[in-house]
């Protein structure tokens, strides 16, 4: 097979992406555990850990730049490089969402928690972990069908988000509970965004496989894009 050097660079680039994905999974799990246990020290770890995610992102971005400059990839190779660039950016965003979750958990740690809301949020977080695992695996296996399945998983995260919103609305007459609840709404929003980023990685998988970029859903439309 010709272009051994280019293939090697593409393989390294993808390995870097999957490696970054593994680190981001750790970050999501850390944010979820910190929320469940209200562990402030774990919150700090998640926040500090984001530096490593950012470093990985910048390194992958550089790798992409060099592959394009030196190897001039086309067709499937080009789609792979572009998809890796986009997907890595989504991973970096997920890292930022984890930082926000950890900061809010720390900020509200002096307030009484509401068990039902915590359980809903942890449920959202665990679903996000699962979605990210599926997104990374589908990309690695070039499994478009599995990637498309992320849309259904995201619906569950969105449903839990609406549940949290409904619960917090009930705190309107309790000032402390309301303050805590408002912060948890933002936490829920962060998990919802993590789910969206996992779906976005799924869309990139389908793009690599089919050559067509299609959004699984579009926020400006009520129904999923066919």
């Amino acid at each position, binding site marked *: *097979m*010709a*272009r051994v050097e*280019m293939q090697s660079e593409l393989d390294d680039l993808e390995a870097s992406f999957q490696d970054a994905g593994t680190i981001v999974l750790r970050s999501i799990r850390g944010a979820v555990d910190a929320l469940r246990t209200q562990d402030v020290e774990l919150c700090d770890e998640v926040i500090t850990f984001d530096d490593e995610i950012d470093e990985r992102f910048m390194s992958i971005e550089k790798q992409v730049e060099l592959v394009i400059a030196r190897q*001039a*990839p*086309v*067709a*499937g*190779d*080009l*789609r792979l490089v572009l998809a890796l660039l986009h997907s890595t950016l989504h991973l970096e965003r997920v890292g930022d969402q984890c930082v926000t979750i950890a900061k809010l958990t720390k900020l509200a740690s002096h307030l009484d928690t509401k068990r039902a809301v915590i359980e809903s949020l942890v449920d959202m977080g665990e679903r996000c972990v699962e979605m990210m695992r599926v997104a990374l695996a589908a990309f690695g296996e070039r499994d478009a069908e599995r990637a498309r399945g992320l849309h259904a998983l995201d619906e569950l995260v969105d449903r839990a988000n609406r549940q949290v919103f409904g619960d917090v609305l009930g705190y309107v007459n309790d000032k402390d509970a309301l303050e805590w609840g408002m912060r948890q709404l933002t936490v829920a929003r962060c998990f919802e965004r993590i789910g969206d980023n996992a779906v976005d990685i799924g869309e990139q998988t389908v793009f690599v496989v089919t*050559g*067509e970029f299609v959004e699984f859903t579009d926020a400006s439309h009520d129904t999923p894009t066919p």
Partner: protein
Amino acid sequence: MSTELDVPPTNAEGDAAPEIEIDSRRMGELAGASASDVRSREAVFRIEELSVSYGTSLALHGTTLDIHRNAVTAFIGPSGCGKSTFIRCLNRMNDTIPDARVQGQVLYHGRDLYASNVDPVEVRRRIGMVFQKPNPFPKSIYDNIAFGPRMLGMKKDLGERVERVLRHAALWDEVKDRLKENALGLSGGQQQRLCIARAIAVEPDVILMDEPASALDPISTTRIEDLIHELKREYTIAIVTHNMQQAARVADMTAFFSVEVQDDGKARHGILVEYDLTTKIFTNPSDKRTEDYVTGRFG
């Protein structure tokens, strides 16, 4: 002399009135159209099941495609795939090879290019060709350009014609003060642009280019490619290139030819594998053979 292509005789001034009126405004409109509109344009060439043999050896098998007006169409593929054989069919250059046999049909503006009463010389005026190795005549720069028009009776305003085509070929500024000098003293890149100017001096409809930049340095190559982008506003261009990136840069449509082994397991001939918008060929080709070739994994 009347031919199947219905070329009117020259008038007393020696001007040949081209049969096909070239509307420069429409040219401009078409040039401004996006690449995706290319396939909706008139097919200057309609090629149907074209096969070429040299003696008993099949070189190219059963090729069918349309070449569209004011588009650049590139032919890419490995050595021996028949792309040069194919392009030479478009202006009957294969006629000059004694044992070459062309089967199938080449329609040029709807007329059979190989009809018995078609004048091959007139064909090659309308369908000009630029070759891999620049081949200026051992004459002055001026006479290189003027030679063709003189032979065809296009003697009116010859000086203006020479200047116009040299400007069009982006060469005027470099040679305007030495038009009497021998063309062989020009650099390789300049000689090739001179050959392009020479081709357009006789008002062709189509310009065929067989690896026009492969013998040139990178800067000259870039200038030739820039020139191709300009020329397609007025001419239909077909280019053979072994440089895939060049095809990606200059062509609106790309045809990928490959080599097929015949039933005896030994003889090989060229075939057309895929023909599509260049953007499609280089982002998401339909055929795996095309994908393997453009990504460099072929072979």
